[in-house]
């Protein structure tokens, strides 16, 4: 089965594709910059060790080159991890460093003069693999905007799929500097259940130890703060989509079309009232017809009875009927008034737009 056929089968009845998107090649720059740093540092170290005026500092000591390379890598890993509050960066660089040592031990290169050549090439090779992985990861994302929902698909081994309907979602957009330059950005659909929201936590704690050798007093005080913020994984957002402004406007429009406006809500309330009144009217008519049928049957049995009872029935039914009719009239009047005001507002808006243009 072809991919397109499969996609077609997955769509709902009357569902039309508005846009099919994938993240911009530069939208995963945070991950790509990790590889970029590895390349730059590998090349710089290669130059320092092999060609620079400082190369004598490194000559004859294989471990020194390896440690210098690894220490800088880990230091940057720690700093980057602290900035983005994600220790995976540090562990990633640690993995790269440990793998380099393991590879050199396995090949028995530690006591040979191999490190000055091996480390730059290893850095570049690992970076290229890293770039490829990021690219595969980027390509595994697919976002489909249809007239009914947003479908978010991702994952190259484990596939995830999320379908978000337009009613009751809030659209959040963000665009970094790179996004502003290349016209891409991230759009997060925040649902009422909280999908699309992350939390920023701030924790602070302090401790104090008092006392001499025998008695010690320990006190710890701390506190935390939590703020909910629009943040989610690239699988649950339209990550780095291009052209950003156009897509955001499209989603906003689709959301607007799905969400009932105040006018629509009022119209629905009117229709409800109309239905209620019609029901009342129908019930009254039923009573009326029943009673007239009864009356005609009685007339047939006793034709000489006076007409007072008929008058009684009319007196009994008519006020209610009148009341319902009155209500109906008022309702229709209100509805027409509302329509007129809506028309005037629309005309004013059009005039404003014309004036602005």
């Amino acid at each position, binding site marked *: 089965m072809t991919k397109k056929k499969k996609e077609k089968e997955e769509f709902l009845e009357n569902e039309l594709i508005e846009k099919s998107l994938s993240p911009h090649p530069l939208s995963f720059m945070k991950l790509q910059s990790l590889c970029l740093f590895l390349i730059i540092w590998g090349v710089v170290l290669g130059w320092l060790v092999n060609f620079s005026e400082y190369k004598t500092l490194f000559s004859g000591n294989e471990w020194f080159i390896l440690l210098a390379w690894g220490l800088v890598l880990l230091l940057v890993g720690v700093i980057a991890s602290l900035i983005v509050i994600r220790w995976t960066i540090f562990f990633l660089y640690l993995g790269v460093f440990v793998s380099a040592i393991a590879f050199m031990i396995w090949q028995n290169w530690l006591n040979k003069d191999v490190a000055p050549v091996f480390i730059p090439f290893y850095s570049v090779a690992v970076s290229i693999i890293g770039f490829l992985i990021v690219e595969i990861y980027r390509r595994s994302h697919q976002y489909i905007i249809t007239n009914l929902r947003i479908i978010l698909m991702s994952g190259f081994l484990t596939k995830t799929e999320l379908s978000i309907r337009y009613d009751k979602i809030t659209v959040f957009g963000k665009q970094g500097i790179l996004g502003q*330059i290349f*016209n891409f950005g991230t759009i997060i659909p925040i649902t009422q259940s909280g999908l699309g929201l992350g939390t920023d936590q701030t924790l602070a704690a302090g401790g104090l130890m008092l006392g001499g050798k025998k008695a010690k007093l320990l006190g710890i005080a701390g506190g935390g703060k939590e703020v909910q913020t629009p943040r989610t994984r690239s699988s649950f957002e339209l990550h780095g989509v291009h052209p950003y402004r156009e897509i955001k406007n499209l989603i906003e429009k689709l959301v607007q079309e799905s969400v009932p406006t105040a006018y629509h809500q009022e119209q629905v309330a009117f229709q409800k009232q109309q239905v209620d009144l019609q029901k009342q009217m129908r019930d009254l008519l039923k009573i009326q017809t029943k009673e007239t049928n009864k009356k005609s049957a009685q007339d047939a049995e006793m034709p000489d009875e006076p007409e007072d009872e008929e008058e009684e029935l009319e007196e009994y039914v008519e006020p209610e009927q009148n009341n319902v009719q009155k209500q109906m009239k008022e309702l229709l009047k209100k509805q027409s008034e509302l329509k007129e005001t809506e028309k005037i507002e629309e005309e004013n808006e059009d005039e404003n737009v014309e004036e602005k243009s």
Partner: protein
Amino acid sequence: MEGYSIDIVIFAPLAPILGVLLFWFIQLLFIQSEKYLLEKISHKHEPLCRFTNFLGILFQTICHAMGYTVTKSGISDFFISVDYGKVSPKKERTGLFEWIANVFLFIGPFFIPAFLLLISLIFLKVEGLELVIPSHIIGTEYSFGGQITIFGSSLYNFSEKFYGFLINIDLLHPGHFGFLLLLIFLGMGIRPSYIGEKKHEKVDMLYDLKNIWSLISFKPLYIIILFILAYLFFHLSVLLNQFWYVELFSIFGWLSIISITALIIADAIILLIKITDKIPGKSRFIPYITIPSTYVLTRMFFFYFPSDFTKIASLSIMILSTILITFLILKYKTKKFNTKTGMKPLRGKDDEEKKGKRRISRKRTD
């Protein structure tokens, strides 16, 4: 020093100021050419234009913020995007403080990028950042002529060392390569104003000059104060037999030279982009591939056959081969150098016309 003459008292302090103004005008001209080129390629290279806009706005906003910091106005709001930058002061100050903040806003963007490059040059151990006092002016060093000679000599000395460094730049040296990248990027961001499809007003050299002129004419008193301060500083330097005054203006001169160079290199790159846009298909990428490949190949060649001119020769070959290849691609892939009608038929026509004229002239003579 031959006593205090009218030259020293009045004219000498003006010499370095005029020198800086001259270089600054040249800088403005190159900025104008960069803006023109960027505008020409803006429809095809929107991201590049947005990037240069961002750099320009970034420097402008930083300078504005610096102005508010220096005048102790504080910063309450700092916003920067690709097409707009805004800095609001905490305290609204008027008078001299407001004026100084505006001076930072208008003048800063011309010199801040160059200042960053100057710092990079210090890290790269480029010489020439010292004042040169020619021996033949000793005795008249504080006169107008003396001051302008010191200013000119210092700039010449710096230019010699700076351009010496540039033509011998080693693109396989990470520091040198990084400096070149910085030079190109900052060159693109030296006050390019706004270039793009949503241009609301024409922002050119005259606009910049008009802004500065309105700043001067807005409060002429402050300009007079500034001049008095400059004169005081000059005479203090003379009294203490120091060259602080001319040294300060020489720094501005160096910054202008760096800016002009950065702008020239940025202009050359934008020009290459503009030319390659005319080449159809993937052939347009060939000049860009030529740049690194010819350099690496020539460096490899000189690695096996060492020479004293390795770096300069590699750089020259790289530039010449890029120009040549671009020219050849333009010639064979486009109709850029073709005339509307072929040259051969025209030559034939020419010959026939000449023959005809001869016949007529013969008839007349007969």
